[in-house]
């Protein structure tokens, strides 16, 4: 009687720097098609935790498994090959290349054509790149140099790049940071829609509680490196411990208000 392993299983993740425990024994899991928000005040260990999932950082102890397969200690590029797409808090794109070329690079890598010295790259996966750009609403920008894009568009381009390897899991580090309020809503709506259609699991960190409560299926809360709450938006909102951390910020009690970001 074998039970299918969850898409992402995190088990007892721990990391300390010197005497400081950045992350202590964090465990959670994520199903396909589920959108999970990782929240917590500054310094809670969100970024450390996140970096251990995407390979940027190695945990002291603990395991990360993708569909039962160990990803702990693997390099970012190996984790990507296992079907994990990611976006960065501060966008990282190929600034001198066009928008389409940015996506093509990811597609070339996905198709294992990186060492093809002779092909004509402008024609490689051109249609697929176009489709991905249409998907994120960037179809009209395909021939623009990436360095000319506005920040919100860069975020959408990153999403297109992250989708290029047909990921099972998307890791998004503060996907809406630095965006205008309307852009935030649009980007997250888009992400949620794509995730549900393609049954992609999404894990994102976020400071904007409006975004979190509107789009997350489930929320996990970190504080001082430990997981203090987990559950649906309603459950987390009602959790007294969480309320204590975010005390004084009316936001948590009434989602939907636009009173600014928390913590």
């Amino acid at each position, binding site marked *: 009687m074998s039970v299918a392993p969850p898409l992402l299983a995190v088990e007892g993740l721990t990391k300390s720097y010197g005497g400081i425990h950045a992350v202590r024994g964090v465990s959670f899991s994520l199903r396909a098609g589920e959108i999970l928000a990782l929240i917590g005040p500054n310094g809670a260990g969100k970024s450390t935790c996140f970096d251990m999932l995407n390979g940027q950082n190695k945990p002291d102890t603990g395991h990360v498994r993708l569909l039962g397969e160990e990803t702990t200690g693997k390099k970012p590029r190996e984790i990507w090959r296992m079907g994990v797409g990611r976006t960065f808090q501060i966008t990282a*794109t190929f600034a*001198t*290349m066009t928008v389409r070329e940015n996506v093509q*690079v990811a597609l070339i890598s*996905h198709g294992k054509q990186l060492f093809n010295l*002779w092909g004509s790259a*402008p024609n490689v996966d051109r249609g697929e790149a176009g489709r991905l750009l249409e998907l994120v609403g960037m179809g009209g920008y395909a021939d623009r*140099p990436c360095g*000319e894009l506005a*920040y919100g568009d860069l975020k959408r381009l990153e999403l297109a790049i992250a989708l290029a390897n047909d990921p099972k899991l998307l890791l998004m580090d503060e996907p809406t940071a630095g965006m205008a309020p309307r852009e935030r809503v649009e980007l997250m709506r888009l992400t949620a829609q794509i995730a549900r259609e393609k049954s992609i699991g999404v894990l994102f960190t976020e400071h904007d509680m409006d975004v979190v409560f509107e789009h997350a299926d489930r929320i996990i809360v970190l504080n001082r490196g430990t997981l203090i709450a987990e559950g649906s938006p309603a459950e987390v909102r009602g959790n007294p411990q969480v309320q204590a951390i975010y005390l004084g910020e009316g936001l948590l009690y009434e989602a939907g208000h636009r009173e600014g970001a928390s913590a």
Partner: protein
Amino acid sequence: MAFYVVQFLTGLASAASLFLVASGLSIIFGVTRIVNFAHGAFYMIGAYIAFTLTERFSGAFGFWGGVVVAALAVALIGVLVEMVLLRRIYHAPELFQLLGTFGLTLMVEDLVVLIWGPDDLVGRRAPGFKGAVDFFGQNIPSYDLFLIALGPVVLGVLWLLFQRTRWGVLVRAATQDRDMVAALGVNQKWLFTSVFAVGVFLAALGGALQIPRDAVHHAMDLRIIVEVFVVVVIGGLGSIVGAFVAAVLVSELNAFGILIFPKISIILVFLVMAVVLIVRPWGLFGKPEAAARKTPGLTVNPWRPLTSNERLAALAALVIAATLPLFAGNYALTVGSEIAIFVIFAVSLHFLMSVGGLASFGHAAYFGLGAYGVAFLAKMAGLPMIVCLLLGPLLGCMGAAVFGFFAVQLSGVYFAMLTLAFAQIVWSIAFQWVSVTGGDNGILGVWPASWAASPSHFYWLALGVAALVTVTLRIMVFSPFGYALRATRDSLLRSEAVGINAKRIQWTAFVIAGTTAGIGGALFAYLKGSVFPDNLGISLSVDALVMVLLGGVETVSGGVIGAIVYKALNIWLVSQTDLSKLVLGGFIVLIVVVFPKGIVGMLEMLAQRRRKSSPPGSSLLAKPIESAE
């Protein structure tokens, strides 16, 4: 025992001057991020002016006054250079400042000959330090003892300057984050100017203080600049203490290397630098460099393959070039062959630099290895020319594979310095392994086979190979591999996040570039009929850099134009004037100031401006925001 102590003290004395020059370079780099190639030139001018002053004015006051006044005068020249030249190019593409300061160095080399003549000048001894001190039967010049004491004194003064003055605090802050310092309302212009002045003052002082020890001559700039680069890199860019320790280390290596490892004495310093860079890329006392903010205005024109019209134009140019033997004499054809070979050399480096973002300072190593490969095969194995041409470049390929593996672990200036170190190691081997390479005498009698012997045939061969290489590399730029390589250049973080093994991509590019350079070198051996260590020397590496930058590093095939213009101008000037370096240097400086995107970059800009005669309609777009990395 006493002998070794004396040797040690001599090393320490040499370190003083080296430290002065290196600390100046380090400070300038730290704040302005300019790799000041002209630093050696300032050192040299310092020595020349000090020579004149100390000859003119007698007595202790004349000497010491002369030394200090010379350094101040050169610092003033430095201020002028900074205000007139460098201020215009701080925002030019990375390394373009290197080209500008290189042009300056060329000019200075001719100017000092013009003013002071070509002969070595032996200055007078320092008053009060004319004698020698007896040390267990060995003599130590008392001036050496003075220098040994001077080093730590200068170190102390600099330390106080940086720790205890407002200016010093600003300099240290700017070294860490100059944008932030500017944002805090510091007048960046004058900070840069003053830093440059101090750096140049130190260089000139180092030169002036050498008078009693060494003759003043017009090639002393190149000799010191390489050593200074080594010192700065070993010590850690921007670290004064590091510069001091590394200066001592390098000087002692030089002093003892010749005793303990006479066979590899020249290599030793570069070997140490290579090891330091591999183990501790940021130098002994440096800190890992925070990812530099990309220069704003990075938006280059997107690269695209040639349109069919442009292809026809390129083909037409090639056909016209191929008709040269119909009307030109043998001399012109030989020049044409040499230019074609340098096109191969330049496009190989251009591929690495502009597509891969890896600026090699030692690319001549692979050019020279190709040349030596041919010479070995032709002279020792007696293979026919066509086989040699095919197999010779493999030596360049192998060299690039070994050195490239280590070099691509680093980036930026550190990559440049490691490639420089490797090139110097290869050069030293060619120079010192006389039994195999013939040392300084080279390998002679590498003559082409009869089918390629006539100047016109050889010209066609060289032209054909150059065209083939250029087209091949262009195809690679627009291949999936080329895209991946550009991706690693633009953002390592993002490349890794989309599954690209950046180091392997860059290594492959390095090997491709090295092999291509080897092809150029192989032809060069046949053109000259001989191979010398100079074929892998620093000046040839610098030539390649200049050709690439001149053509335009942000372009796809700027190397071709850069090579043709630079090489043709160079050969023509040498035949026309004794002051070829002055003119060429002036030309380079002019290009740098007027066309900071290089010749091809400028042409592209003009073409684009004409195309965009009507303003773009979509002005709704927000103004570009740089993706920070």
